[in-house]
């Protein structure tokens, strides 16, 4: 209760646009950590998100993404370290942080028995959106999300993609500074995912939002200005997606020959390349593979049965950094805090 007194002193229509000074990061995390019993879900994570940036947390299930986002959104207290959002401390100024951010959770949080517009009105009242702008804002966001025509339908009748769009609209109603999206396209089909992204990027442009999101989809992470790759509670890399991919040393080439080991030896003596062998297939990285490969084939002593070139993906980056792929669900089995016991209601407390 005492936490709330600071919030009461603030005026109703407070929009919390004032906090960060220009150029300063809007989110900072300093040695942030969170334990669940003896499980270390997030260990010693530090980063800063610039104003207007789309910042992504990429990692497999159970890597600590939701735990981090929950700490930034004041839903979980950090076990150690500090974080500030929109200039406010996430522990000391919970109410101010909450007012400055929009949130879209992994699991739906809509009241399905109310209509779409009733859900939005509830949110507007709860956040004290002034009467003068309330209806205009609701209409603007619903139109943008292409939901205006269905505003009076029960949310029950909405598809998964529509619900997610409605939640994004709701998260933005109170003019937040920062929008947090926890796995915004989880469980949606590729077309819908694509559409959601179009809306999100459109919104960023129109509203000057900073967006912080978590995902385990590589293609989704490509849309971010910068991504932090997180694994087992630690950030293993943080940069622009193209820089991360370039760090692998260029394109990925696979060659299938009569003798894999011999081929690798040849590559290493002639070009100084290193790579890996699996059966008779050699994989290695090289810049400008499109030019390198014809040159190689002309003079290569071994018979090449097949050759392939592709641009590296973020999954390759992840694999190179952690030694395992983002796609296999290894992590989910050794992260007990994400194993839900009993009813879905429990989730709220756990993560």
């Amino acid at each position: 209760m005492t936490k709330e007194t600071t919030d009461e002193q603030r005026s109703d229509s407070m929009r919390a646009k004032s906090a960060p000074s220009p150029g300063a990061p809007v989110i900072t995390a300093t040695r942030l950590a969170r334990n669940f019993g003896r499980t270390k879900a997030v260990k010693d994570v530090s980063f800063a998100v610039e104003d207007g940036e789309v910042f992504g947390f990429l990692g497999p299930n159970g890597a600590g993404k939701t735990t981090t986002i929950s700490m930034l959104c004041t839903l979980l207290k950090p076990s150690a370290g500090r974080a500030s959002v929109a200039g406010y401390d996430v522990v000391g100024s919970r109410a101010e942080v909450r007012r400055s951010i929009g949130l879209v959770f992994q699991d739906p949080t809509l009241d399905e028995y109310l209509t779409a517009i009733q859900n939005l009105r509830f949110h507007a009242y709860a956040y004290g959106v002034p009467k003068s702008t309330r209806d205009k804002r609701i209409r603007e966001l619903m139109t943008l999300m292409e939901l205006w025509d269905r505003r009076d339908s029960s949310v029950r009748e909405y598809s998964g993609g529509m619900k997610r769009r409605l939640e994004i609209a709701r998260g933005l109603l109170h003019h937040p500074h920062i929008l947090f999206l926890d796995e915004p396209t989880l469980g949606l089909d590729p077309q819908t995912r694509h559409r959601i992204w179009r809306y999100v990027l459109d919104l960023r442009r129109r509203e000057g939002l900073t967006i912080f999101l978590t995902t385990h989809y590589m293609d989704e992470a490509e849309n971010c200005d910068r991504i932090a790759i997180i694994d087992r509670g630690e950030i293993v890399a943080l940069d622009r997606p193209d820089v991360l991919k370039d760090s692998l040393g260029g394109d990925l080439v696979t060659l299938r020959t009569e003798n894999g080991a011999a081929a690798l030896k040849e590559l290493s003596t002639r070009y100084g390349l290193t790579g890996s062998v699996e059966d008779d297939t050699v994989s290695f990285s090289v810049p400008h593979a499109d030019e390198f490969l014809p040159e190689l084939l002309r003079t290569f002593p071994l018979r090449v049965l097949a050759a392939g070139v592709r641009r590296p993906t973020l999954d390759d980056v992840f694999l190179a950094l952690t030694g395992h792929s983002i796609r296999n669900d290894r992590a989910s089995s050794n992260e007990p805090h994400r194993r839900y016991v009993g009813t879905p209601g429990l989730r709220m407390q756990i993560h």
Partner: protein
Amino acid sequence: MSSTFRGIWVIAYRELLRFARERTRIASSLLMPIIFMVVFSEGLKRQIGAFTAGVDFVKFMYPGIVAMSVSINAIFSGLSVVWDREIGFLKEVLVSPLNRSGVVLGKALGAAVIALFQSLVMLALAPFFGVPVTLEIVIKLIPIVFVLSLSLAGFGLLIGSRMRSQQSFQLLVQMVVFPLTFLAGVFFPVNNVPRWMEIVSKLNPLTYGVDAIRRIFLAGEVSRLPSGSGHPIIGVTVFGHTTTTLEDVALVGVLGAALLIGAIFSFNRQV
């Protein structure tokens, strides 16, 4: 304070909106007391009539049924917390800047308004059961029903804030509610039962709610009966003192305030 007040009205508004949109809930909350009335008044009239000296059994039981259905509905309002948690909506409420006291009081207020609506419908039906209703009864009843339902909503919310599934909430509440209502003098006067039952009944806060409502209905009837130090069918006699309507309501109110404060504390511990 503004955050608390906004919390109260936003949450209450949504409770009412939900109630208005759920026709089955409206229907069941009205049907239950009617079924009780028909079954008990017709079925027990002859047998129990003897207990309620000087007063028609139906007239005796009707106020009890009003109190009982108001109480049950108010307690079950706590289920909405569990339900909100299950569908995820509670998270939307808990991360909003609304303060927790406002959320709890808003839920209780919503429940109280619904209980009030329900009791007014029951009053409208009273003449069909041969129970006369005057404007005076209606006016006096409103604050009593309001206090009673706020208090019991406090109880429901306290339990609801701790429960993770609707099944466990329902099981627990039913286990508490049945003995509570049966030993609250709804069907028979508490001053006229075996000693152990009398003690349990007089410890039961609902007894005082039932009595307060019954006094309003039977005010006319009782005054016509020979007066003495209290009356066997109204008033709860504790240590030789028979409570007045005001004392009944105050007792329920104080207990309710304690339960609501408990529910607020329990809510504050979440997230």
